[in-house]
């Protein structure tokens, strides 16, 4: 929902961008050279390089599908990825408790590009869309961090 009127948003967007820039400044100091990574979402798959180096990462996610898509970064555990009782979505809460859920992006509309900053230690990861049925329809891809 966007209850804010267009004109006010027009005014607020540059202000928010300015605030975001000031907040991002300390993070950039800690990670001197974050790796840029590009992920493309389509109905119903995610395209991403299979292997990357560990460390700070700036993940640019582009939704090229007709439907909205989320992006959830999960570290693979020993067990498989648990589903919620609806049998249609991944149980992110359990994964979070297990410390496997890294970070996520809220649903993005088709054509939108979003960025996700995260720090990945070496290991195996899986990137999924957790919209209802999307994971089960094939929207999951593996990522190996060395």
């Amino acid at each position, binding site marked *: 929902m966007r209850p804010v009127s267009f004109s006010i948003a027009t005014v607020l967007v540059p202000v928010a961008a300015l605030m975001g820039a000031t907040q991002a400044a300390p993070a950039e100091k800690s990670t001197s050279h974050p790796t840029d990574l590009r992920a493309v979402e*389509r*109905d119903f798959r995610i395209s991403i390089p299979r292997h990357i180096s560990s460390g700070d990462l700036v993940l640019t996610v582009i939704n090229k599908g007709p439907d909205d898509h989320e992006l959830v970064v999960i570290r693979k555990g020993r067990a498989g990825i648990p589903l919620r009782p609806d049998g249609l979505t991944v149980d992110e809460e359990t994964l979070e408790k297990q410390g496997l859920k890294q970070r996520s992006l809220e649903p993005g*509309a*088709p054509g939108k590009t979003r960025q996700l900053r995260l720090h990945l230690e070496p290991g195996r990861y899986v990137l999924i869309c957790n919209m209802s*049925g999307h994971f089960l329809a*094939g929207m999951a891809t593996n990522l190996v961090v060395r």
Partner: protein
Amino acid sequence: MPGSDTTETARALKPFSTRSRGPIAAILVVFAVFSTLSVGLSIRSTTGSRHQATVVEVAARQRTLAERYVNDVLLLRAGQAADPAYTADILERSADALLAGGDAPPVNGDDDEITVPRAQGTLLRAQLRQEARLVNDLVGSGSALLGGRSVLSVPFTAHERIATRNPIERLRILAALTSNVSLNTTRTIANKNERHLNNLITLQVALGLAGLLTSLLLGWALIATTRRQTAHFRSLVTSSTDLVAVFGAAGCRYVSESVRQMLGRAESAVLGTAFMRFVHPDDRVALRGALAGGHPHEMTFRLQNGFGEWRHLETHITDLRSDRHVRGVVLNGRDVTERVHLEEELTRQAFHDSLTGIANRALFRDRLDQSLARSARTGDQISVLFVDLDGFKHVNDTLGHDAGDRLLEEIARRFAATIRPSDTLARLGGDEFALLLDGADETLAVDVAERLLYRLATPVSVVGRELSVGASIGIVSHGGGPAASEKLMRHADVAMYAAKEGGGNRHAVFHEDMGRALGELIGLENEIRVGLERGEFSVDYQPQVSLGSRQIVSVEALLRWQSPARGLVPPTRFIPVAEVSGLIEPLGEFVLRESCLQAARWSQELLLDDGFVVWVNVSARQLAAGGFERLVRNALTAAEILPGRLGLEITETAIVADGDVGERAMAELRALHSQGVHLAIDDFGTGFSSLAQLRRFPVDLIKIDRAFVQGIEHDARDEAITTHTVNLAHAIGALALAEGVESEEQLTSIDVLGCDLAQGYLFAHPEPADEVTRRLSDQRRAAKRAAAA
């Protein structure tokens, strides 16, 4: 700067009101465009929103229908009542309708079909296409399951890669995907609607602001225009030299600042009832009437300024009492005092004599007309006096026109002091005055005339000399009733002539006989004047014979007038008229010149003896006019004859004139005589000459009047007078000539009495020059023959 003046003028002439109409009209047009746009957008947006609402409704129910389809499949498979095919049909038709536009089928039987527009926008159409594909995969999988076919064999069209082989799981996942994409589609539509709404709000706000700005501009323009107009009018009113005043029931309510400049009074001093205090009392009633009723629209009244002067205001009065902006009578006034003064001066000049300041002929005539009109009504008597100065021309000729003018001024002053203020004294021109006496009968008029003559009797001092002039006054009295002014003036003129003919310096009262006699006289005067110009006059010569030798020794030149209307007019008929009118001067000059020329012709033809003289009559008026000596010398020079050939016959009255005139005439005659011109006393015995005067006058010939000659035979007194006259002539060294000798007896008598010369019908009538030439030639030839014998 003449250039900038032109520009300013051109700018000032452009009406300011039309200049402000353009911007106001433009602002109104913009305002109308904005309002139309705003309303149009609102209508379009509302219509669009209504369509989108139906789309959202159809899109939203697809979620439910997908899940219902799965339930229907599972229920039917479990042997319960369900119709998945119906649900599938709705799902598929709705998906198609959402994408391509058209009617979406109702979910319940009693609902109406929902018409949806064709989907717009790339994203929405992509989502709807994906939804249609997923519906297709869902319905395909459901149909396979119900048909006992392998669900795995159904090809997916929406790129889903479902790992599970459980057909029911696959159906549930497909339903979830369909539901999900339907939800997102709904959200896209909602977002789009929201964007439209935001755009609309933004646009409406912009239009509102533009409208507000336009309204402000419009207001500003109107206020500016109003201010400009107000300032313009204020400037016009305040800077105008014209007076603008508004009057209400309580008097003057407003007066423009120009009142200070025009009247030297403050606005506050003339407001209210004070205004009327400065209006001339004679004009107050008219002005009050005009201000009360708005009529007349134009009037001129007098207003006293701060210096006590009366200023004439030409005003235009407009009744604006019904105009709610004014509610009063507006007076626009212009100071026309200078113009009024100029008009008065021009009127004064037009009706007054510039020299004396008294009325002129036009004003006199006007006053006379008015008096006669009054007399016709009331029967009042009127008297008119015509005054012609005697001897004025001589003053002009001898002392110059300036002296003449001073004399006229003084006489006008004296006349004006003699009459009543109600009488009209006018100068008709030259030395002619006229007097109009209202309510005066003949007795009073005569009394006035005598007083005028009495006032003239006192000499007037002009350029150091004491001058005396008389006056001939004609009086006419009108006893009341209708009369024409021309007639009255003509009668006064006739009476004046009569007075002049009677010797001048007197008055004469008009009577009808005088009118007839003098009317003819005046007509004759005009005829003489015209005849002189047309050459109707000529000169005849009457021979004069020496009683000793019986030879023609001289001739008398006599003026002859052959009038085309009257025939031959005798000198006794026209000479008195010429004397009175002054025409005797040009006539006398004509005779003088013509006689000299004729003497020259005879002399050239060798017809004249040495002592032959051509005698020319000289009138008293010719002598009094002055310059006579020069006139004679010019005539002699022009004819190239010796002065001794010319003789001048002067009447006794001419040489007995008193004062300067007589002295000067005598001096001129003496001068001529000393040059050789002969002098004769004409008609001796009929005048008043005294022996003392004769002694002072160098006379060569005394002509004894015919009255004595014709009675000489039987009247002892005539004989005695003739004898004494002959003796007197001889005593002063002159010759004696008997006039009017008509018989041998008369000739014998005068011969016995010692006359030297004779003239009369016995010898010859006055004859044309040719006839005299013949006589002279005969006489010459006879003399030659006698000499030869």
